[in-house]
């Protein structure tokens, strides 16, 4: 009993560390990725040198880190933490303080249902590499994403600032509109794999289509994949869907935030980016699946088999999941630095008049195809 609890706590810590680290490094990636796109150098100054004769030999090792700008996230963090904790005059102080916590909390909570590996057999125990093995994992994730709206609403309402208020209104309508599409696109996946459990969906993607093509979501639901990715992009509230922030129009729902509380909004944005990457990976790109890797090892479609030990298989799965997530984070970052921003009414048009009907049609089409396959 206590052992089970300890294992679950350990898994939660591992997941938390993965997410926080990927999200934290995002502030560096954002700087460097945008610099690469824009022909700049990006951050390459923050850092320190050691003057003590005892530690001076470390300086040559520090220099490449400084040039890569890897100290920049630390400098950013220190700057945010050192700033004054300020709440606006005439605002609701308590709600103002609570909003970023709620936002970050719900952004993190969704990760509990994301599987990052198959079952690990160690010391006679079966450990599912997933924090919470929920049989309605998919519903849980969307519930958490939906609750994230509260952070935005509260920050906008409690700030006593018209810009923050406008940002909150935009944020709420955007998130609610796109969650409908988001949910509708995933129905197709649920129909194909016949489960709401994220782990089961990923296991289902380990099968092969026509004996050679991995049965990943993107191959069985190509339209759903594109729609999901677009709607999920809107959920992250980053360009081209960064209307709630729109730094050149309204400054956003966090106009009145500074210091650590602002940093939490920033971090939550990055966490959501990781969430979108993880969800896309899990639902459409095989999650922790590696092509042709079975529990016993590689089984290639042409009949060859390479036996791989159990721990190595689990390691490959976890690494495969992380690599896919990071690749999607990179893709999201590239999109963010390439496109201009939508306008509010255009966003609503896109969500309700174009993406929702298409995603509903996708459900109907998927049902039809499944019926036909079963009938044949």
């Amino acid at each position, binding site marked *: 009993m206590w052992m089970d609890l300890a294992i679950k706590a350990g898994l939660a810590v591992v997941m938390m560390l993965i997410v926080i680290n990927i999200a934290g490094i995002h502030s560096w990636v954002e700087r460097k990725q*945008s610099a690469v*796109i*824009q*022909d*700049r150098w990006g951050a390459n100054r923050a850092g320190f040198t050691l003057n003590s004769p005892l530690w001076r030999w470390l300086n040559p090792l520090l220099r490449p880190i400084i040039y890569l700008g890897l100290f920049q996230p630390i400098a950013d963090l220190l700057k945010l933490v050192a700033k004054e904790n300020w709440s606006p005059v005439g605002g609701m102080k308590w709600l103002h303080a609570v909003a970023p916590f709620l936002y970050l909390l719900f952004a993190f909570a969704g990760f509990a249902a994301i599987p990052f590996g198959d079952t690990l057999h160690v010391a006679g125990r079966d450990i599912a590499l997933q924090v919470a093995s929920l049989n309605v994992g998919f519903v849980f994730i969307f519930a958490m994403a939906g609750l994230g709206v509260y952070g935005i609403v509260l920050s906008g309402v409690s700030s006593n600032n*018209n*810009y923050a*208020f*406008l940002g909150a209104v*935009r944020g709420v309508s955007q998130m609610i509109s796109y969650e409908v599409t988001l949910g509708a696109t995933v129905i197709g996946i649920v129909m194909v794999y016949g489960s709401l459990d994220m782990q089961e969906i990923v296991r289902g993607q380990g099968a092969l289509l026509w004996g050679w093509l991995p049965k990943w979501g993107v191959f069985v639901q190509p339209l759903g994949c594109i729609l999901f990715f677009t709607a999920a992009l809107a959920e992250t509230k980053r*360009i*081209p869907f*960064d*209307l709630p922030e*729109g*730094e*050149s*129009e*309204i*400054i956003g729902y966090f106009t009145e935030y500074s210091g650590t509380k602002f940093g939490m909004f920033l971090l939550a944005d990055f966490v959501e980016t990781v969430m979108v990457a993880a969800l896309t990976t899990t639902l459409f790109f095989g999650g922790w699946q590696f092509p042709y890797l079975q529990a016993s090892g590689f089984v290639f479609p042409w009949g060859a088999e390479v036996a791989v030990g159990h721990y190595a298989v689990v390691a490959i799965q976890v690494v495969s999941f992380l690599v896919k997530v990071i690749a999607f984070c990179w893709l999201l970052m590239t999109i963010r*630095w*390439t*496109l*201009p*921003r*939508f*306008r*509010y*009414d*255009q966003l609503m048009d896109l969500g309700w008049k174009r993406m929702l009907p298409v995603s509903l049609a996708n459900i109907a089409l998927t049902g039809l195809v499944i019926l036909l396959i079963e009938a044949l």
Partner: protein
Amino acid sequence: MRAIAEHPLTTRTMLLNLGPSHPSMHGVVRFVLELDGESIVKADCEIGYLHRGFEKMAEQGSYLTVIPYTDRLNYVSPPINNQGYCIAVEKLMGITVPERGEYVRVIMSEIGRIADHLTCVGAATMELGAFTAFLYYVEAREIIYDLIEAVTGARLTVSFGRIGGVKADLPDGFSNAVHKAFARTREILVECDKLLSRNRIFVDRMRDVGVFSKERTLAYAIQGPFARANGVDWDLRRDQPYSIYDRLDFEVPIGDGHCDNYERYAVRFAEMEQSMRMVEQCLEQMPKGAVAVDESGRELTGADLVEEAKRGHTAQVQELRVVADPTLDGTHRGEIEQVTCPDKHVLLPSKEATYGSIEGLMNHFKLVMTGHGLAPPAGEAYGVVEGANGELGFYVVSDGTDRPYRVRCHPPCFPIVAAIPEILVGHMVADITPIFGMVNMIAGELDR
């Protein structure tokens, strides 16, 4: 339901102060908006945050000291402002500028116009969130600024114009530098064009936004690219040619009748190409400037001149006409009569003459001391040029003394900013930034 019918839901409009402390208002303008949701019901525009009293300051000093102030009007394209003011004073005094001087002026003005348009279209993309495209445009602008720096020694406050001409001739190898810079600028423009002009989001944000009819444009007396995009076929360079514009072959891009932001963007985009063409033509047509030749017809460089002087051949050297060097390096900078009117009453002598000879010093003294300097005959003149935003006019009144009695500047973006409240009504909050960006308000010239 009955309760609602009896007590209808009342909605209130929201008052929103946009600016001056707002990222896209640059701290220089304020919009007071009345919003119904996100739609603008009423807009009011408050200007004057950058008022520095240009016109009053111009009355305090001599005619020459106004020139640096003009740099600070439209600080994105200062050579055009210099030219406008100088034309007004030249009209007052009846001075003709040497041909080469006119060419240098036009070259610098057009280069300044390219920088201005690059800033405008770049900033518009940035305000739509496409920060990357903005930095691409800025790269092109840096190249253009390098050209300006090569000629004037400054990037922003160039003070390059002089009454009767320009400060100095173009540097050696400028023509090559221009061709190289324009080749790269064109590459960047093609790249940005690919990135934006058919980008669905960008087009949706610009097309049919900020519509302002041709009639209303004329009613507000708006000129420049903004008016041309709205279908007003009017360009001072073509329709009221000044300087040597009548010798150049160029087209005036006109909007296709949408009268929207996209047209304003497209017209500016097309004008940059026309400006580049003009500069290239000028460089071809330009009469050759003086070169240093000794009595036997041998061409001399600055270093050779110094060598000659060291050998004591100063008498010969003084007689030579040499290539003017704008960097004020000294050694091979001679008189600059090729680019400025040779009249000693308006032309500041070169620094070598000022520091090296009593005549030069006296000439300089007579021009800069209070009560001595340039004193045009009593009268008034209006010098006008096609600024990057439209008609840029300087109305100079002289009472016969060495100080201007009045210098009135007609800023091109004033009428456009006056029209902004009318344009904004009915649009959404998000449309303000692209509309405002395409108005290209430069607070320096608007508030003066």
